């Protein structure tokens, strides 16, 4: 059976209720949602203010890799039904939602949190999206540290 799967890169505000409705089946019993926010101030480590984050993506590859992440989730957690992975790009200011990943299980809740966690972790490893942090003191690209392996 084909479960609903959504992957997209968008410049528009993310509507979680709309995404949930689009991946919900009559057999669906729960959802886990991860939503990333833009922080206006960082207190951990080198404390600083952020004016905005600017995201860019290699859009066609990013959408293909999001599809791959969804397939990996389904291979690991067979209870998962619908999956939506959405990344907002462009200039994002504090208090705006930037990312969401609802994953919904059939009947049991088992696995849904782990699946959502796996999704965000993999997104940060293999989906080609970058963010530039712009603060009153200047701007810099945030770079990850994961080097994809062959076949990823």
């Amino acid at each position, binding site marked *: 059976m084909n479960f609903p799967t959504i992957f997209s890169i968008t410049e528009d505000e993310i509507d979680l209720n709309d995404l949930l409705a689009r991946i919900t089946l009559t057999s669906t019993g729960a959802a886990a949602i991860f939503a990333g926010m833009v922080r206006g101030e960082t207190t951990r480590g080198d404390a600083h203010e952020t004016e905005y984050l600017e995201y860019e993506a*290699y859009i066609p*590859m990013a959408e293909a890799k999001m599809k791959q992440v969804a397939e990996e989730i389904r291979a690991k957690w067979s209870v998962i039904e619908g999956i939506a992975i959405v*990344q907002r790009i462009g200039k994002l200011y504090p208090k705006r939602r930037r990312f969401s990943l609802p994953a919904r299980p059939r009947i049991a809740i088992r696995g849904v949190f782990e699946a959502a966690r796996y999704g965000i972790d993999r*997104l940060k490893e293999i*989906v080609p*999206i970058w963010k530039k942090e712009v603060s009153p003191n200047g701007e810099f*690209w945030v770079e990850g540290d*994961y*080097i994809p392996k062959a076949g990823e």
Partner: protein
Amino acid sequence: MNRVKLLFFATLRDRAGTKSMELDIPSELTVQGLKDKISDEYPNLKESMSSVLITINREYAFDEAVIPLNAELAMFPPVSGG
């Protein structure tokens, strides 16, 4: 020769000063060969070549991979989405 499209993202785009370029490369050139060629011809990018990620037709590619005809290549730093 092989005409390919090379896309740059994030820090690589800033250093290259462009989002993309068309490039003529020798046939059978490997990813490592491409890195060497870019280092020689674009000094601004030389420093980035040790940690850059490279894709061929939207899949991650490694040093020994041979670049196919008319490929879409991209160079970028490790990703930081989410």
